[in-house]
């Protein structure tokens, strides 16, 4: 599938305390981007904070996050949030804004924005105000915006959680395209079917700690940790 993205990400005893409450504790994690990782866990387990910490939006309280062996050699990366945050301008202008911030020349922005929006199936309505689009369309604009910046790594925080099944499967298709183009994916989700299809490995978090990391094809049938087994039992019908 994807060409191996040349980077390594390593966390050593990563811990995050927010508002006096430990949210993540002792996370040791190594990833070279070759596998697509789904972060699973109950609400409040720390999935979102883990993604935000890896992406650099939350400062680690303890431990370290090393990209290519250094705290400040992070590769180009992007994040898609649970609820897309779009600027009050057209979908195309939203993508072009991200490219402008990234230092892309004006002439190139338009073509790249158009290509990214075509990639998520929104070429026809690229000129429409982004904020009045449907939830699914907004999430696809957010994906196009992330994609256009050509990140090595893409974090997605529950990208399908607020979408109906059709919109969710569209997001899943787009994620496949982004991965196929050589971007490493790490996402959190509550949709187990989605995780099973879209991930190679599952990172299971319980109460701020990683209890297991298992290939996706094994995790859903035979989780190794008791917490994950309990979680799957509760979640699956």
């Amino acid at each position, binding site marked *: 599938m994807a060409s191996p993205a040349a980077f390594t990400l390593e966390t050593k005893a990563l811990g995050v305390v927010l508002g006096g409450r430990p949210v993540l504790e002792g996370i040791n994690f190594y990833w070279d981007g070759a596998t697509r990782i789904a972060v699973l866990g109950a609400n409040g387990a720390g999935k979102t904070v883990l993604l935000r910490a890896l*992406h650099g939006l939350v400062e680690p309280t303890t431990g370290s996050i090393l990209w290519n062996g250094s705290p400040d050699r992070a590769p180009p990366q992007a994040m898609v949030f649970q609820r897309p945050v779009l*600027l009050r301008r057209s979908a195309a202008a939203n993508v072009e*804004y991200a490219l402008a911030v990234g230092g892309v020349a004006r002439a190139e922005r338009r073509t790249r924005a158009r290509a990214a929006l075509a990639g998520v199936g929104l070429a026809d309505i690229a000129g429409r105000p982004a904020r009045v689009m449907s939830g699914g369309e907004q999430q696809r604009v957010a994906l196009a915006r992330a994609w256009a910046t050509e990140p090595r790594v893409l974090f997605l925080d529950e990208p399908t959680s607020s979408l109906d099944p059709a919109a969710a499967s569209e997001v899943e298709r787009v994620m496949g395209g982004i991965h196929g183009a050589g971007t490493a994916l790490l996402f959190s989700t509550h949709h187990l079917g989605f995780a099973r299809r879209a991930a190679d490995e599952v990172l299971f978090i319980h109460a701020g700690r990683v209890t297991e990391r298992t290939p996706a094809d094994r995790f859903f049938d035979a989780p190794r940790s008791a917490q994950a087994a309990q979680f799957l039992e509760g979640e699956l019908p």
Partner: protein
Amino acid sequence: MFDIAESFRIALRLVLSGDPELGHIVWLTLRVSIASAIIACAVALPIGAWVAVSRFRGRHAVVVAMNALLGLPSVVVGLVFYVLLSRAGPLGTFGILFTPRAIIVAQAFLVMPLVAALTRQFVEDAWLEYRDQLRSLGVTTRRAVPTLLWDVRLSLITVALAGLGRAASEVGAVMIVGGNVDGVTRVMTTAIALETSKGDLPLALALGLILLALVLALNAAAYALREWSARHG
């Protein structure tokens, strides 16, 4: 005693007949109010936005001070500018006391706190919503300011209209630094004050009607904009 109904009739006739004296006063009021609102916005919009997105020591004190400035007594502002602009004052060399320019300066100063405080509120609300996304894109604080100002632009038009309304209805400072000179610095509010004290109620009422209509129109415009923006994102 005066006849209220008769006064209203004369006032309406003045308005409808396009009385030149009345016209001049209205035109001057609009000119100085728009100019001062523009100056106030040029200064206060970036300040308000910058305070909204910056985190520095003493920021809370700055926010409290900005809100406190909303209650700035306009007569005191007028007095301060009178002292500054008078011949012997530090800004006396400009020679603008008792000219429309002095009114513009004083009004702009009075409108700035209003624009800055409202802008800070709107931009800060947007910043809370956008912060993570903008930081994820690699947007610096310096770049976030124009981005956020542009994104809340419809709210800011409401802010500018509120500033214009405050400028047009201002009387204390304008009376002091403008001097209410007939044909030169006589604006609607000072004219109303003067005509009322002289007992020329029809002219005062005519001006009052126009001022009310102006403020109403500004508020209607602000309301229409909010409605429009709610539909168009």
